[in-house]
């Protein structure tokens, strides 16, 4: 009788598909990571910051989508236990009401490993997105970093696996490390800007250190030349609140273009504030006669508009106290906490700074206004510079 019952049950199960799941589904299930969202909620107390791909273009989320998308994301230095939102896919469809336990090991310069989390499939082969906490911290200095995660499953429907099932690897995930929350005009920084800023400021943990690097790289790396003809700006209409044409700037650099101090000063603020330096842009009018300076892309001069002058003022170096030489009518630069960061020039700081050779080359960075003007502005002929004032501007 018992034998008969077993036979009947066996026939029913096999004929009508009523076999128990454990016997009918292939083992093991095939699990893959479907998506990872790094900036999955507003704000950044748990997750990544909001960044943009460029002008008028948001960063698609989730940032990582299997086979089709791998976008960058950004964190602030030393943040810990960042959260990500992960979605899995499971095959065959018979597992669509299952749960799995997953974890991830990290390789590279990551934001941490992920402890075991239980993920649910609720009537779908796509799991309900699961917010997972990374065990680790973001680097302590500005940088661009990459890592990958190796994902494993150590239980299916609560049944632990002796050997974890290998899900696969995701990455390389590349992220920017900023110093602080980014500020205007880059409060939602563009990736094209962060590519420069994070590289330039790599390893810097202070705003002043990062700003110095930003200044040095703008001056050295972008192949820009000071307009020694008439000091016209290229990327902005004026020295105060004029829009900075960032999209055009990014299209053109590095490339041989002529700029003035408004361009350099506004670029300093844009690239520094993208990583949270808190820099300002300052404009000073009137300015005065220069000691020997080395404008961006040019040689030494104490007569900065020599290209538009006739003999004898068509020479970069003229008589050190000559009142007929050209001078800056106004000047602009980046600043941080009252100290100046000028990407437009280097200055001669030897004992005879208004003439040369010889020249003793110094960056004009981290100087107070009184130090800056004593080093950059010649004492004879006398000048009466105004006081630098901060101006905000937008980018397009």
């Amino acid at each position, binding site marked *: 009788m018992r034998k008969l019952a077993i036979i009947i049950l066996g026939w029913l199960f096999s004929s009508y598909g009523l076999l128990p799941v454990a016997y009918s589904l292939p083992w093991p299930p095939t699990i893959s990571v479907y998506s990872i969202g790094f900036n999955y909620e*507003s704000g950044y107390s748990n997750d990544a910051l*909001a960044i*943009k*791909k460029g*002008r*008028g*273009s*948001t*960063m*698609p*989320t989730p940032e990582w989508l299997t086979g089709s998308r791998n976008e960058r994301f950004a964190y602030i230095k030393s943040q810990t236990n960042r959260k990500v939102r992960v979605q899995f896919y499971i095959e065959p469809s018979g597992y669509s009401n299952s749960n799995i336990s997953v974890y991830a090991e990290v390789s590279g310069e990551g934001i941490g490993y992920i402890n075991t989390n239980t993920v649910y499939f609720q009537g779908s082969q796509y799991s309900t997105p699961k917010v997972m906490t990374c065990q680790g911290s973001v680097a302590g200095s500005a940088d661009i970093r990459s890592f990958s995660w190796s994902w494993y499953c150590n239980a299916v429907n609560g049944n632990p696996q002796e050997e974890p099932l290998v899900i696969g690897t995701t990455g390389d995930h590349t992220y920017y490390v900023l110093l602080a929350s980014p500020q205007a005009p880059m409060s939602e920084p563009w990736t094209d800007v962060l590519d420069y800023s994070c590289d330039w400021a790599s390893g810097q943990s202070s705003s002043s250190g990062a700003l110095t690097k930003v200044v040095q790289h703008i001056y050295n790396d972008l192949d820009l*030349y000071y*307009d020694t*003809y*008439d*000091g*016209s*700006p290229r990327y902005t*209409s*004026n*020295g105060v609140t*004029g*829009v900075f*044409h960032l*999209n*055009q700037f990014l*299209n*053109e650099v590095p*490339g*041989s*273009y*002529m700029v*003035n*101090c*408004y361009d350099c000063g506004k670029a300093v603020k844009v690239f520094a504030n993208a990583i949270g330096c808190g820099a300002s842009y300052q404009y000073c009018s*009137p*300015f*005065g*006669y220069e000691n020997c300076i080395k404008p961006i892309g040019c040689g030494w001069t104490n007569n*900065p*508009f020599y*290209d*538009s002058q006739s003999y004898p003022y068509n020479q970069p170096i003229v008589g050190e106290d000559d*009142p*007929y030489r*050209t*001078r*800056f*009518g*106004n*000047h*602009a630069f980046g600043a941080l906490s009252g100290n100046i960061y000028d990407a437009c020039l280097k200055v001669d700081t030897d004992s005879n700074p208004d003439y040369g050779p010889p020249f003793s080359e110094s960056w004009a960075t981290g100087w107070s206004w009184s130090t800056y003007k004593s080093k950059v502005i010649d004492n004879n*002929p*006398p*000048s*009466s510079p105004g006081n630098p004032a901060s101006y905000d501007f937008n980018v*397009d």
Partner: protein
Amino acid sequence: MKKQMLLLLGIIFSLSFLETNACKTALDPLEDPPDESLEKFKELADFANWPGKNGLIREGVNLNKYSIPSLSDASITSKGSQFYYQEAEDGVPALVHHTVHWEKIKGDFLVVDLYIAESCDVIHEYAIQRFFYSSMPFELRVPKKDDPPIAGEISFSGGRRFIRNNIFVEISPHGEMLNRIAAVAKDIDNLLLARPTASSAEEFKPMIQRFEIANSLVESNTTTKLFLEVSDPKGSELYYFWQVTAGGIGKNEYGEWYYDSSWVDPGTTQTITVVVINDRGYYRSSSIDIKIKQ
């Protein structure tokens, strides 16, 4: 004795006169601040008498499509030919900016920037502001008019800058290219002179036949297809500039534009603007408002 006194006084007077004049050339902190306004600048530049303020408008030119004889030994660099839409600013309406960069060898380069407005008086205003906003001292910024003009209806500094109808041309040379300014200015002016003129910009502008969104009530954190149909009266190459008050614009793998409402606050109204530019320097824009679902 009286004669000697007079002579001495005369010497003292002339010395003090010389000193006063010498000081005027340097920056004297005791002097009253001079009038350095845009109005004063216009007066010094004789702006009111610049010719052509009410003239016809002219079609622009895509310099990348033509050979410039004076630059035949230089080449346009890979990033060197672009069109930009420059939004209205400081009382100057929006413009189209076309820039081309030639390089012969490293350090010997020349950039030509064409600014194309929809009327001549607008481009005149733009040009005077370009001269006005510079790092030079006020008195040195006043443009030096060429007489006769090297190119255009009016040119400055040996052809370095000139205006032809509604088009302002700037030539920025470096290195060996400094010797070519006049020749380049004439070549570019010849190209411009070959373009048609009109009394209004309308016939030069591209057309936007359709600009709509698939659903004007959009869910937050979704993408929604945009329908954009454009054409150009002369079949010119078209460039697109997008402005959004929040969210973003993207293009999918099928070449279709979409609006991305990621992180846009629910319950808000947002505006999407498209600016379509043709490579003859004219643009047309269109905007739509969308609501983000609560």
